[in-house]
């Protein structure tokens, strides 16, 4: 800790008046999470898990979050590429619209999904009529809700990397006879792979933790659409505080692993080009 220096140059060190709010801010962010670990009913944890059907819920969460991430990667990378590299006029507007799920409250996103893809939605109606497909309150619905909320995370990461990537390398590849597809697959994409990986992990973590849109569009059906976050709310509302803590722990664990794995790299990435 070199927060307060007693000796040596002070240029660049934080000014004293900032130190108190800085410490309060730090504690505010750390203490509640720490409390979760401290107050966890470590002894009765096994019983809690059996009681709360956590294994079932855990499995549903892991599978749907992974499926949603696959959807995000398959659609998000092309989208990020189009946003970063195409020269169409309305690109900035499109980018802003695409990033909306990032800032819109997820419950609002859930309502929007319902209006669009619900059984009476302006798109869902035809899915039902033509294919007999109903998305709300199904596992597919869960995947769609998670992908809707999580995809912008991937798109932001990949688009940023693509925009700061050296287009000169693409030009060099073209002069060597590479088709646009070959340039993309052999030069452009491999060079932003670190950002793609970081974006994918973030996207997966966001999908795993998704609650608002998921519960509205996917519902809360035990063993079918109940994910870990939904389970946390359900047992918490049922007054079972220790179960809620027990169910929260896997999510916390995943978060810690993700942060440890990414380090502060994705934070830096928004300001500096990916190397």
């Amino acid at each position: 800790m070199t927060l307060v220096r007693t000796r040596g140059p002070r240029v660049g060190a934080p000014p004293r008046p900032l130190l108190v709010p800085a410490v309060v801010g730090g504690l505010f962010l750390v203490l509640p999470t720490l409390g979760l670990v401290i107050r966890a009913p470590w002894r009765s944890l096994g019983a809690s898990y059996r009681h709360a059907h956590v294994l079932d819920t855990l499995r549903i969460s892991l599978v749907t979050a992974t499926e949603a991430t696959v959807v995000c990667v398959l659609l998000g990378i092309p989208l990020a590429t189009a946003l970063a590299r195409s020269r169409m006029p309305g690109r900035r507007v499109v980018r802003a619209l695409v990033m909306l799920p990032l800032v819109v409250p997820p419950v609002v996103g859930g309502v929007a999904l319902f209006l669009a893809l619900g059984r009476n939605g302006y798109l869902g109606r035809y899915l039902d009529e033509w294919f007999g497909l109903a998305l709300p309150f199904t596992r597919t619905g869960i995947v769609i809700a998670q992908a809707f909320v999580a995809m912008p995370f991937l798109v932001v990461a990949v688009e940023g990397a693509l925009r700061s990537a050296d287009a000169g390398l693409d030009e060099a590849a073209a002069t060597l006879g590479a088709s646009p597809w070959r340039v993309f697959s052999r030069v452009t994409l491999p060079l932003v792979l670190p950002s793609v990986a970081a974006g994918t992990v973030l996207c997966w973590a966001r999908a795993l933790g998704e609650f608002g849109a998921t519960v509205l569009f996917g519902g809360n059906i035990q063993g079918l659409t109940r994910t870990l976050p939904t389970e946390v709310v359900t047992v918490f509302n049922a007054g079972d505080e220790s179960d809620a803590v027990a169910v929260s722990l896997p999510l916390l664990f995943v978060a810690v692993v993700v942060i440890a794995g990414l380090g502060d790299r994705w934070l830096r990435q928004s300001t500096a080009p990916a190397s």
Partner: protein
Amino acid sequence: MTSVDFAARVERGSFAVDAQLCVRAGEVVALLGPNGAGKSTVLRAVAGLVAARSGRIAVAGTVVDEPACRVFVPTERRRVGVVFQDHRLFPHQRVLDNVAFGARARGVGRDAARTSARGWLERLGVGELAARRPRALSGGQAQRVALARALASDPAALLLDEPLAALDVQTRADVQGELRTHLADFAGPTLLVTHDPVEALLLANRIVVLEDGHVVQQGAAAEITRRPATPYVARLVGTNLYRGDAEHGVVALDGGGRLVVAGSGTGPVLVSVRPSALTVHLNRPGASSARNTWAATVSSLAALGDRVRMTVTGPPDAAVDVTPAAVAELGLAQGVAIWLAAKAVDVETYPDPGAAVTVAG
């Protein structure tokens, strides 16, 4: 006919290049000009990295860009090998795969492409670097690898954009000699973009000077050195250039002063005098064969290899080359009043190619 034919207008924002030039097979043409003259724009248009606004660009007999006929061949099908100033090696691939990239893109199998790439690396004397990553290369090594990569893609034409600019002085001297050999070995046309006249003189058979988007002069190096067409070219080749009006063997210079010349043309002319053709005297020279004498003041002195380049204010102003011994013996220093002398036969006069433009514009 494997040549590069360029006769096009290329626009970049408010700047436009409107130029004509041709590079024949086996020829190395240097496109020489100051920064911002549009040299790289010409190269990028030939490579298909920018589109021409009008005119016509052909590579190896195939029209690759002709807006009037809606022809535009994309870069990857033009078969132009480009060596970029910043080399642009793919950082995620080994040197060997960088050089094999072109062959792979054309559908050659991995092993065959790598074998051929290894051959090119050997030929350029960097075979031992095959397994390295580009970031582990020095500037000179990266330059050789970039050239190997361009040549290995079997190009119909070779384009080099300031190939030595990114190198330090010592490396540049080393690479320059090699580059000359490799360019001589290449059978197709080579277009070399540079702002360095020495590079142009050493590497090219012919020089095309581009200024402000237009070709102001082209010809063999000797021709350009002897008869520079613009002040920029004169400065590049290190000679004195004056614009003036000739009448009966005397040229009245635009900037003041007169020079007696050997020719007898009349009208607007350019006059060039080599700095080494001027003699320096402390007193007004007496009767001699030098037809031109004028008073001047030394304004600066700078060492230039084994000579001293002195600039003097006249009129006319001039750059004068003298030996260090002369500087010492005559006590030449800033502010010293001197006399300059030049024989009429050392004063080159030729029609001013820019005169028509000056009158019209």
